[in-house]
């Protein structure tokens, strides 16, 4: 950035360069690993959206159970076929829809609930804060996978919506603790005192003055959570507790492929490769976001 002072000055003149978000975005654009992750992620989302255009076969219909079962990759079937003679490529592309939708939506639920909860605890303070945070401590003490198994046992089969809710409602504890810490420190700041002195109501102070400070770190945490939730969802499918829908998710492709792992490794290998690449891409973006958003807090700005 410093190598190009003229452009920087022009941005400042236009009144745009001073926005911390713009600054972060600019840092992010120059971060090659983060950009690589973002491109992979966009390609995956694009493939999921355009699934019918990219898949020559139906993801759920067996093609020929006698002749076309457990085939290795070929031109006709780039990822081979599974034990029910279904095209693994088509299943994977359609699986991306379920996997990515569940991951992003459940994190959205978690972040919304966690931010509201943490903001209330941090802003109200006192006994309310202590009580609310003890509940979060208790929730964090329960290992998430065990909690998910318990919920799966008590409620049994669930849809994509159910999965989003279950993963979302067991994922907000960490976010709420993070938000509470940020709100408590922002509450003591001078600009909040100034806003109050000008007669701003609590809701206005929270939404207009405190939340903008919270969004950055929460965004970073949410991005990491997306990667984590993809693995958790695949793990639940692996244990046989995943989404019960006709359409496949990567976890269920993996789990079905595992049954024939010693004779045909293709289905589960491609599914796990997709999982790892996606999680890696998400983590790279998250890492880049963290660097970019931290940078704006440096005094150099």
């Amino acid at each position, binding site marked *: 950035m410093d190598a190009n002072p003229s452009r920087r000055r022009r941005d400042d003149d236009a009144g745009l360069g001073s926005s911390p978000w713009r600054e972060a975005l600019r840092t992010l654009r120059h971060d090659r690993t983060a950009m690589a992750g973002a491109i992979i992620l966009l390609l995956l989302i694009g493939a999921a959206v355009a699934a019918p255009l990219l898949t020559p076969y139906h993801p759920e219909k067996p093609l020929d159970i006698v002749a076309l079962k457990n085939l290795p990759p070929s031109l006709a079937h780039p990822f081979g076929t599974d034990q029910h003679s279904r095209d693994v490529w088509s299943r994977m592309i359609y699986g991306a829809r379920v996997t990515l939708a569940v991951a992003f939506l459940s994190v959205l639920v978690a972040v919304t609930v966690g931010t509201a909860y943490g903001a209330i605890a941090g802003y109200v303070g006192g006994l309310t804060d202590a009580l609310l945070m*003890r*509940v979060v401590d208790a929730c964090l003490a*329960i290992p998430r996978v*065990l909690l998910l*198994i318990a919920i799966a*046992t008590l409620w049994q089969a669930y849809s994509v919506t159910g999965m989003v809710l279950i993963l979302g409602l067991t994922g907000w504890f960490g976010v709420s603790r993070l938000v509470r810490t940020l709100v408590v420190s922002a509450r003591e700041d001078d600009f909040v005192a100034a806003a109050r002195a000008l007669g701003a109501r609590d809701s206005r102070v929270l939404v207009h003055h405190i939340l903008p400070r919270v969004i950055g770190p929460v965004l970073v945490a949410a991005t990491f959570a997306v990667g984590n939730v993809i693995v958790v969802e695949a793990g639940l499918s692996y*244990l046989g507790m995943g989404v019960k829908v006709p359409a496949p998710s990567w976890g269920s492709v993996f789990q079905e492929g595992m049954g024939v792992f010693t004779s045909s490794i293709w289905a589960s290998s491609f599914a796990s490769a997709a*999982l*790892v690449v996606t999680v*890696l891409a998400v983590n790279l973006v998250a890492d880049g976001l963290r660097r970019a958003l931290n940078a704006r807090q440096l005094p150099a700005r």
Partner: protein
Amino acid sequence: MRRFLARRLTHGAAVVLIAASLAFVLVHIAPGDPFSTLNNDQLDPRVVEAWRTAYGIDRPLPQQFYSFFRQLAVGNLGLSVSYGRPVSEVLARALPNTLLLMGVALLVSFTAGIAIGAWQAMHRDSVGDRVTGTTSLVIGSLPEFWLGLVLMVVFAEKLHWLPAGGMVDPLHNMLSTGGRIVDRIRHIVLPALTLGLLGTAAIARYQRAALLDVLPQDFIRTARAKGIAERWVVYRHGLRNALVPTIVLAGLSLPTLLGGAVFVETLYAWNGMGSLAAAAFFSRDYYLVLGAVLVGSVMVVVGGILTDVLHAVVDPRVRAR
């Protein structure tokens, strides 16, 4: 130190109590009760009704809440439907196996993670540092069950070096004492390695960052100025201080480790709490799953307290807080 410990124990007890209440709420907002999941058409509905009365499920909720905690206080976690024995008994058999697996995995990940992280910090930005950093990033992104499966296929199916699963060989009881020990070690290597590798990746990244935080500080410069050998500076002065955040990480990573154990135990047929809970899902063994959740959270809380005590021992500043 005593006041610190007392405060920490009170907090831990409160957390466990709230977690138990949450478990109670979870059961009662779920559809059905333990007897509606029996799926037995031969059973007379009146018998089921009698069971409900006998187990007190038809009583008002506050009363049930009270008796739930009274039973919990004496270690009664209810009856396991699939084993036909008290849940506490079933869990007591599985718990040592899980603790053993987690203990070995923690040991592996700490020894390897600290060594790798320290080496990376000393050779900061070298080719070796970057390659190791990328590798640990990739390994850290791997799902436990996949990593476990790959290790199993390579070392058990293809190379036949190690057994593919189970706690002991089917002929374990016919072996000599030495043979039994070897047999047990051979069975724990792959599951512990699976769980430990993921931890190693996380700890190495953390340890590298922690050491890089410490190395530019003044007391390190003082040590160098005194002419102490660089190796000694790093190990004796740097690493010691950089260990503090790593100890805290161990406590924080316990829930994740326990979650990972669920997958590893299921994959390697390891008779621990995790595989027990996963199997209980299929038999709809209500109270066994809840018992596992409660024991799991107690483990996390106790682990957290131990971490804090250890932290306070290592770093006197913590005690003052």
